[in-house]
């Protein structure tokens, strides 16, 4: 079988698997967040937390709980890294430096998993599994909780109540993330991923050399890193490491895990708002953009333009033989279109347009299908904007799902949209203006600029992947990217929850002949258009200096 046909069939298998679970899994998640019943283990957890899961919160209370939980998360993770030498299973590693510990704590709590450290040479097993991996679960659950709160904003009327954060957090972890993670972790071990508590052990090879084989609770961390769209690898090589991602099947499983919650949440949304077709319209917009990215990256890697790639006869630098160009491109598109940032191949060594597309994928704001929860709320914000633009065109007060999009609502949506570009472009400009930016580049010229732009794009959009030639472990970058990650995660949440509160307190308006039909393909098209136009206008100048200049320079 030739490479192209195999890669097409792989894509078909992936889409088929996602389609198969879309409805049952999406409806299951809707039931999880709508149910009035509590499991016994959940009651126990609520008692430990001291929270009443039935108490309804308005948006300020919901937001305060999100922030309190996250601040504690940052401090706890920071302390854990600073004192890791005193903890068990430290493998003899020293404490992490303050700037890097801050960066890493911010990174994992913000669901970014930008890593300025190398796992196998810095982090003990306990820091990995009881620190970093815990945030992989809970930061994902926080994202889902905020998305569900926004959906409730559309569903509820004349109340302003958005649900209970602690209940949403606990349910997301206990009923959604844990069961899927447990089963997939075992599947991953069956394929060859390691799962133990040993450190490095020495072997004597046939050629008379010695080699150090690592161990660790890798599979359990690997699956939640994908499922929660986190992306922080146990090892520096991330999902390119054969112990994290041993073969073609594990690779497909990991891509599936990355995409399953973000895509299925559109069904959850449709079910909760009482019209599954509304969910399909959002899904269609997400799917089109994701597929476009897959095709652009794959085509560019197949054609492998670039002096070095042409000389080699293929774009195999920074790619694993068992994956090749196709499976690497599929992974790259999926990880940058969600806010995952795990990599099974290094984007820095991709062709100019392939690498540029991974960058653009993040610049779209991680909404196609986006991170766990954050993808849905990001796309719903874009839907609000699209409805508003359509309203301007026909001269009507815009409505979405029976709620008026007035001045207040559009201000929240516009503020949301402005945050990440401000962080990305501001951060990149600052780094380039100071000597720090140039010193951190591995590559030269336009490609070097792309490394810096990629770093801030990845941080502010909570992706976490890197053009990893970029020397990110300096106090300047640890601090500024750390701040970008926190602000890029939590400021948008403020506006999402404010918008949700405002929507929930409205009285629904009846559908009339003049209402924009947001469940129709036309609206999906408008949504794709709005997303690309807004991103294009914002980032085109920066892209022109980076990947476009590089790709067109020959």
């Amino acid at each position: 079988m030739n490479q192209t046909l195999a890669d097409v069939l792989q894509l078909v298998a992936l889409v088929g698997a996602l389609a198969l679970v879309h409805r049952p899994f999406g409806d299951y998640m809707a039931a999880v967040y709508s149910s009035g019943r509590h499991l016994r283990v959940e009651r126990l957890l609520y008692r430990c937390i001291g929270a009443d899961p039935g108490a309804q919160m308005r948006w300020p209370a919901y937001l305060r709980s999100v922030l309190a939980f996250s601040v504690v998360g940052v401090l706890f993770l920071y302390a854990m890294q600073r004192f890791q030498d005193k903890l068990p299973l430290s493998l003899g590693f020293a404490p992490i430096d303050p700037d890097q510990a801050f960066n890493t704590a911010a990174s994992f709590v913000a669901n970014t998993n930008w890593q300025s450290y190398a796992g196998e040479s810095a982090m003990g097993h306990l820091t990995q599994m009881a620190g970093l991996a815990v945030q992989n679960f809970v930061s994902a659950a926080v994202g889902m909780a905020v998305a569900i709160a926004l959906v409730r904003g559309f569903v509820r009327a004349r109340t302003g109540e958005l649900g209970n954060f602690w209940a949403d957090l606990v349910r997301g972890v206990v009923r959604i993330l844990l069961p899927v993670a447990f089963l997939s972790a075992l599947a991953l071990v069956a394929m060859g991923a390691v799962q133990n508590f040993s450190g490095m052990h020495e072997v004597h090879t046939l050629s008379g050399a010695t080699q150090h084989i690592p161990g660790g609770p890798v599979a359990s961390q690997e699956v939640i890193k994908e499922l929660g769209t986190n992306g922080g690898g146990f090892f520096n090589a991330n999902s390119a490491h054969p112990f994290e991602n041993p073969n073609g099947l594990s690779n497909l499983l990991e891509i599936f895990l990355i995409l399953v919650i973000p895509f299925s949440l559109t069904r959850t949304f449709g079910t909760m708002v009482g019209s599954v077709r509304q969910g399909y319209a959002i899904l269609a917009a997400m799917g089109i953009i994701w597929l476009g990215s897959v095709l652009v990256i794959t085509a560019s890697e197949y054609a492998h333009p670039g002096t070095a790639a042409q000389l080699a006869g293929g774009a195999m630098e920074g790619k694993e033989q068992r994956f090749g160009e196709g499976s690497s491109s599929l992974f790259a598109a999926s990880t940058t279109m969600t806010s995952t940032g795990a990599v099974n191949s290094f984007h820095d060594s991709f062709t100019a347009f392939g690498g540029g597309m991974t960058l653009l994928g993040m610049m779209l704001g991680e909404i196609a299908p986006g991170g766990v929860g954050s993808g849905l709320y990001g796309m719903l914000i874009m839907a609000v904007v699209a409805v508003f633009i359509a309203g301007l065109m026909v001269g009507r007060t815009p409505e979405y799902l029976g709620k008026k999009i007035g001045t207040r609502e559009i201000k929240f949506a516009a503020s949301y949209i402005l945050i990440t570009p401000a962080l990305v472009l501001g951060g990149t400009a600052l780094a380039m203006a100071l000597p720090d930016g140039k010193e951190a580049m591995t590559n030269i010229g336009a490609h070097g600029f792309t490394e810096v732009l990629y770093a801030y794009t990845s941080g502010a959009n909570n992706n976490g992947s890197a053009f990893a030639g970029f020397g990110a472990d300096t106090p300047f970058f640890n601090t500024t990217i750390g701040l970008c990650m926190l602000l890029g995660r939590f400021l948008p949440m403020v506006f999402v929850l404010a918008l949700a509160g405002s929507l929930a307190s409205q009285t629904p308006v009846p559908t009339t002949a003049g209402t924009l039909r947001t469940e129709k393909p036309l609206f999906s098209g408008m949504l794709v258009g709005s997303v690309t136009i807004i991103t294009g206008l914002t980032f085109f100048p920066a892209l022109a200096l980076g990947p476009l200049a590089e790709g067109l320079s020959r």
Partner: protein
Amino acid sequence: MNASLRGTGRLVWAGLRALLVLTVVCGVLYPLAVTGVAQAAFHDKANGSPVEVAGKEVGSALIGQKWTGRQWFHGRPSQSGYDPRATGSSQFGADDPRLAKSVREARERIAAYNGVPASAVPPDAVTGSASAIDPHISPAYARLQTARVARANRLSEGTVRKLVEDHIEGRTAGILGEPHVNVLQLNAALRAETAKSR
């Protein structure tokens, strides 16, 4: 002011309790449960798929090794010399002049080393992998080394060619990834073959 401070304190306290209890669930019980089942059901794989020759562990089937000498099949270029303590890749862009130089040099070196024309050297042989410990090479690169390896081990080319063909693994499930050859397993089989012929 006091009341709002107290409220914030209560909230942070709830946050801390939530974090601690979820740390126990997700950070201790979950990995322990996965490890328990994995160790019982998939013992070898959970411990890194060790490869044994004559009862001695000589490496992992999933971790590539550095091979020197004409008698072995060689793996791909590695950033770290196949040291699993430092995984990662060159990070050079597809247009980078340094990468172009190293590709050109590797192509000439490998062609001369194996006595084949430079045009026969496949991409994986001249590019660094993502992990720096890629355990595999392409079937083309394995076939290209056959004659050289056979000569160095005083085996017939046919014998070695058969070993190579036996070790070619297709795409997983027929469609996933690319065909590949596991270098350590191939070399272990080669070692057994040379031992037999002496």
